């Protein structure tokens, strides 16, 4: 296996000590370096890395209103906890909030929202909850009832991203922080390649806190600190195709820990023609949200839902509102549209 292994070969002799403080008994080893460290040093190292990312990248200014995207899951809980700690410890002077999105998934979201409400009390951070129902008129339960389990994740992803932005605007926050870690991003880069989307991901993740830390580190932190978090797969996710990529990434990380960062590096280095890199920043005609097309993605999807055309906006643009290509629709491309919505000229006999 890879080089790191040599370092951790067990030699007989006196019990090992934490390789940082040399005092306490180690309780775990860092995946990347395989160093054996004790609980306290782990907390310090972890928190210090996040602090360094914040300082080196000058992520915040004193007095800013900062919203933390809180799902109740491990990542956002750890983020909320650490950020409020560091804010206190290093006097960032930030005005911190929790911002949570209620997708309207019975049995899943209700429980995780309870967790966030507890976090509000535990960390002393005010909480704002925005629901899909408020913003879009549809809950995920309604959406799944209509379209089944095939493209539901697409809807949820688009709606959630907008919801966080809109919520942040409503609360007049200066910065929005999300708990995406390196594994999430690597996964997204891979998924985009697998599904055909290469230009998009470049501008999706604006504020990254935990870039240098992997998935394993964050979960370990949450475990040791006994942080209150909610940990179940979204009930609609069994068919989620992201699962394939996640398994692969786990295996990959075992073989070569730095591969996760290498994926992100590749993503940054991809040679993408300048024309596709930065889409024109305009506004959606329907709702006024930032959009590079006539209508923003959420509006396209909503229009589809409201019109009973659940596949509208899924897959590549074939005319319709955003009229990506003005080519005549081929017979093959029109499996989704009903006969009535087709113009006579394009029907094939």
């Amino acid at each position: 296996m890879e080089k790191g292994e040599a370092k951790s070969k067990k030699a007989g002799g006196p019990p090992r000590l934490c390789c940082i403080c040399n005092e306490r008994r180690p309780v775990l080893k860092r995946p990347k370096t395989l160093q054996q460290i004790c609980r306290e040093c782990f907390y310090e190292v972890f928190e210090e890395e996040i602090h360094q990312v914040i300082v080196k990248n000058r992520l915040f200014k004193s007095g800013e209103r900062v919203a933390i995207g809180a799902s109740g899951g491990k990542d956002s809980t750890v983020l909320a906890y650490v950020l409020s700690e560091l804010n206190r410890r290093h006097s960032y002077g930030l005005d911190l909030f929790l911002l949570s999105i209620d997708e309207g998934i019975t049995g899943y979201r209700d429980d995780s929202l309870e967790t966030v409400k507890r976090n509000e009390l535990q960390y002393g951070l005010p909480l704002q909850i925005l629901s899909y129902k408020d913003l879009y008129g549809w809950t995920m339960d309604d959406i799944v009832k209509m379209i089944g389990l095939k493209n539901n994740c697409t809807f949820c992803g688009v709606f959630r991203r907008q919801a966080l932005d809109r919520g942040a605007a409503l609360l007049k926050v200066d910065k929005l922080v999300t708990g995406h870690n390196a594994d999430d991003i690597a996964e997204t880069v891979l998924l985009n390649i697998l599904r055909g989307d290469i230009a998009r991901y470049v501008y999706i993740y604006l504020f990254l806190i935990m870039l240098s830390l992997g998935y394993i580190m964050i979960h370990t932190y949450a475990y040791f600190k006994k942080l209150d978090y909610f940990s179940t797969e979204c009930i609609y996710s069994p068919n989620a195709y992201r699962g394939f990529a996640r398994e692969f990434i786990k295996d990959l990380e075992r073989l070569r820990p730095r591969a996760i960062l290498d994926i992100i590096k590749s993503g940054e280095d991809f040679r993408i023609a300048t024309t596709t890199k930065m889409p024109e920043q305009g506004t959606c005609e329907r709702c006024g949200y930032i959009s590079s097309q006539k209508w923003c993605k959420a509006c396209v999807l909503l229009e589809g839902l409201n019109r009973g055309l659940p596949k509208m906006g899924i897959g590549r643009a074939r005319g319709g509102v955003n009229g990506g290509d003005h080519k005549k629709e081929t017979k093959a491309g029109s499996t989704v549209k009903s006969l009535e919505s087709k113009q006579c000229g394009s029907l094939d006999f």
Partner: protein
Amino acid sequence: MCSILAMACNSSGCESGSCGRDKENGRSKVEEVKEESVCLKCKSNEPMKFGDGGSDDGRFCADCFRSNVYGKFRLAVTSHAMITPSDNVLVAFSGGSSSRVALQFVHELQVKALKNYEASRDRSLPVFGVGVAFVDESAAFPAALSGEMGDAVAWVRSTVLSMSPPEKDLHVVPIESVFALKLLDSVSDETGKEDLLLHLKMLSLQKVASENGYNRLVVGSCTSRLASHVLTATVKGRGYSLSADIQHVDARWKVPIVMPLRDCVWQEITRLCHLDGLKTVELARHPQSGINDLVSSFVALLQEENPSRECTIVRTAAKLTPFYFNKIPETDDSCVPMATQRRLKKFNLKYDGSMTTEAFCPICNGPLNGSDSSEGYHESDNTLYAACCSSCRFQILPQDRSSLEHFGSLLPHHMVSQAKHHQKVDSQTYLREKIKDCLLMDDEEAEAV
């Protein structure tokens, strides 16, 4: 062009979601496809059933299936000017299905050219030459391969012999002819070792090609192989150089590499071998447990879930900007027919005109990203370390700097000189590109003068 694209769309496992099949949760689609009683294309013959559990079984008759695949090959060859009458082409043959099909198709193309030549009155267009190269890797895998290799080589020889006329030379290249075996032992990373071996294999092919007067190297890489490469390159941090490796043409090398089967999927290739009784030989390797294998298993898994996944991956990666060397150079040969030159020009418009590449990694020959090479470079650093890409630095070069000198001395001289050679060619092409708008005469007129 349109009808060929439609063909490509209908052939097994290829192209977009517009084929009207349910792509999202891909369970096996075989049972959902209606039983076709007649070939979809010619509507007259009985469809061929391969019974291999793959997608699109029983849709086309044997002839239409074959012409679909050959059609893609021929389209790639003509639109990229891969093989022209004056060329001398070396086909890299490993004994596997992909290169077997490549060899077969190149042979058929040559036979057709010979027929035309003999039938024509003025004999103006010569028939391109074809040679075959087989790399003997047994020195790198002594325990696994030594017994089989003799038989394999004999089989290759007889296969090539059976493919005449026109006659083809066979070159068996032992891989140790380009490097010292100690080199592989100095690489501790499993994946790094595998990749280094691939680079050395390419070096040996380049060596035999240029020493024997070939000016094209045909490699049988198919869509499926490229899909795996897209992912392995991504996970190794090679996102910048990725687009250089997956095009139809790779003219970085002294002898340009062409990949005429780039648009064919593995399923088509194995089916064709089965259909036409093309024998192949699969040499046992020692078990590979690195990243490359992990990725191919992953891709195979995805492919099961969705039969067009490999195509989607390659199509996505094709959106990345290729490099200026991803085309047959226009000024290469004045014997290239005018029609081809014109087609080349039109086709070449889509490539990146700006020559921003300065250098290539001496080990993998990958174009270096500006920031990549300057990262962590210090005055006192070993020049080999400074010249390599970050991926080769990590997985191939020895980690302790003191061993670097020794490692460098084990590397084939070719690796370093290859890079130097290319830099020379670069500047010439680079200059032409910069000044071409000022040139009064275009290529054709200049040649005629």
